[in-house]
């Protein structure tokens, strides 16, 4: 009965519809939004529409300054008195200020001068130059031309410490102003070290949990899961209290005579790794535990009965079978750590800040959403690349624990 089968399919589709909608709304849409924000460049083409159009025909290699049409177009764009237009011009001014510092006030003050009653009959070229000499400089017009297209690689290049010159060539920004590539490498380094530390602690812990007696295993489970269920801020603040100069750990070390002056344990790299490992341990232990639990204990006994000593048995029998858990735990830990924001910003010094800090800075403080999106994209691409690499080498199904 095909009718009945169709109906069944419709119902099952409807049943998962909320899930699909949810995935679409909270997962796919934001990513698409990030992608478009990182290349969107509407400010100048919307704020200065006539000028953008007039400058499209101008070739800076042929003449220093654009033709009269561009000057007139700019004057018309800036003379528009409607609130929407002044707002759009202000947005264009913000965008152009990225190209040349000072453009913001140049555009706003020129607009003000043009809207005020002034002498007529003069050529626009002379009038604009009289308002501000910068309108007679090629660099000013080149900046508008560069910023006029509706899409740009400006933010993506900035996120890679690069910029594009007027002639189209791409080069690195001066040494003193480079930042993001170093921050990206730092982010990956922190994530890698945290993952290795978690593995070093998590592997023996998971083994112990599998092999321990029921009661002890339960206690160990609680020790791993309780922090997992505790608020991130509570955990982080607790560590700040514990590790500070006057904190219990330093006091204990001083009292025991191991150190004579307090150690700097927080607001530096040491503190960051201590707290991050604590945050991430469950992400490592749980996949390891579930893999180890599924390994029948008589495999190891069999290896012993066949004459292998326990060390050889571990390396040839046990370890290979736990590798899917190691892969899944490591990947999970690495990805979550790379995107962490709150903990590093609370327990690290400015020098330990990761990419997430800069995404937040550009989104919330600097209001440079284009660069925030480009940096977010950079992180996303790195994590995806790692995922694909792991998928190639270990196998996606194994990482997901499906095999």
């Amino acid at each position, binding site marked *: 009965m095909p009718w009945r089968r169709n109906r069944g399919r419709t*119902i099952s589709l*409807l049943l998962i*519809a*909320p899930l699909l909608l949810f995935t679409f709304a909270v997962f796919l849409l934001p990513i698409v939004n990030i992608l478009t924000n990182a290349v969107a460049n509407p400010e100048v083409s919307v704020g200065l529409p006539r000028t953008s159009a007039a400058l499209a025909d101008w070739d800076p290699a042929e003449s220093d300054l654009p033709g009269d049409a561009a000057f007139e177009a700019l004057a018309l764009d800036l003379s528009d008195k409607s*609130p929407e237009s*002044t*707002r759009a011009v*202000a*947005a264009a*001014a*913000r965008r152009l*200020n*990225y190209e040349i*510092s*000072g*453009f*913001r*006030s140049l555009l*706003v003050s020129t607009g003000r001068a043009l809207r005020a009653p002034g002498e007529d009959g003069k050529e626009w070229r002379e009038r604009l130059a009289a308002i501000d000499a910068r309108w007679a400089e090629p660099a000013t017009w080149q900046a508008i031309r560069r910023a006029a297209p509706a899409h740009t690689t400006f933010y993506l290049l900035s996120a890679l410490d690069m910029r594009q010159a007027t002639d189209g060539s791409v080069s690195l920004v001066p040494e*003193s*102003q*480079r*930042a*993001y590539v*170093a*921050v990206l490498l730092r982010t990956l380094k922190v994530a890698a070290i945290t993952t290795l530390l978690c593995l070093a602690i998590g592997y023996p812990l998971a083994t112990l949990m599998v092999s321990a007696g029921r009661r002890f295993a339960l206690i160990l489970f609680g020790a791993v899961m309780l922090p997992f269920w505790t608020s991130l801020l509570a955990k982080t603040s607790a560590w700040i209290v514990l590790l500070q100069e006057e904190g219990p750990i330093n006091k204990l070390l001083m009292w025991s005579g191991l150190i004579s002056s307090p150690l700097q344990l927080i607001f530096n790299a040491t503190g960051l790794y201590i707290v991050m490992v604590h945050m991430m341990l469950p992400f490592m232990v749980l996949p390891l535990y579930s893999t180890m639990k599924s390994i029948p204990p008589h495999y190891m006994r069999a290896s012993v009965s066949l004459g292998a000593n326990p060390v050889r048995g571990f390396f040839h029998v046990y370890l290979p079978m736990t590798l899917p858990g190691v892969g899944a735990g490591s990947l999970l830990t690495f990805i979550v750590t790379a995107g962490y924001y709150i903990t590093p910003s609370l327990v690290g010094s*400015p*020098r330990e*800040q990761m990419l997430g*800090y*800069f995404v937040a*800075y*550009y*989104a*919330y*403080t*600097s*209001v*440079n959403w284009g660069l925030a999106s480009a940096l977010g994209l950079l992180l996303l691409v790195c994590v995806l690349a790692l995922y694909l690499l792991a998928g190639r080498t270990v196998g996606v199904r194994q990482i997901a624990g499906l095999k």
Partner: protein
Amino acid sequence: MTFSRMIACAVSLAVLAGTGAGAQARDLTVVGFGGTVQDAYRKAYWDPYAALKGIKYVEDTTNGGLAKQKAMIETGNVTWDVMQMEADEVAIACDEGLLADVDWTTLSSYKDSEPSMFTPCGVGAIVWSEVLTYDADKIKEGPQSWADFWNVEKWPGKRGLRKTAKLTLELALMADGVAPADVYTVLATPEGQDRAFAKLDEIKPHIQWWESGAQPLEWLAAGSVAMTAAFNGRITTAQGEGRNFPVVWNEQLFAIDYWAIMANSPNHDQAVDLVDYMNSTGPQKLFAETIPYGIANKEAMAQLDPAVLAILPSAPENQKRALSLDTRFWIDHGQELSERFSNWVAR
């Protein structure tokens, strides 16, 4: 109830919840820079005003920046009404249409006020100053200039500075021997900017960055910094609590903060009325007596005790070697220098 009807109900409920939240009427929301200056606003302005009008109000705090305002306008969910804002940010936000462009001459308090304290979209709230301070109980012979502040050999210990390019690069140049009058001319050149960052490099390991104005004084009291840049009014408040923190007026960096009203505020008329109240003589006098920041109202200034006048940033004695924050400079260079600064801090 059939399944499809259940879905329809769920969808319409979700839509209702979404639209209902934005349209809800809410109490007047006022935003200051937190800490003791906010306490003074509450005491001198907000509580008396709310009692007078029989209304409730809500407080929030900010450390500056325009991101929240921009997000409110773009999402159409305006949750602030009256805000304290820094001068360059008022100008930028006004141009970008984030603030209500009110005709301030219609305020009843306008005639009593200094005309220069009014700007498009903003009414001068306080004249504040960033100055050097230290704990005189711990340091007998204290630092007297930003050059001294940089001298970590003579005065060891951490230095508190605000984690923004604005207010920090200026101090670096003054520490490097640039006269207050030349600071912005130098800072406008790429060489001057490099010079300021190079000067900051000298004491970078010694700097403890603060973000809210209350932090540096807490740290100074706790002894975690040896000396710090801080806002003058908060230092005086700490003195009132028994702290021996002198204000070093030499090379002070002073500026005006403004009251501004959000564009599309659902409480617009009430907000204008509150700004008018805050700018009127009685409340202004009470405010300046609570915390020594300069005020816009001339009548209130005239009524102030000479002892209070002497500890305002505008006192002639304090203005001898002072730097006025250049709003125009920060409108033009704020974005570039702030981003370079945040990258530099994280190096």
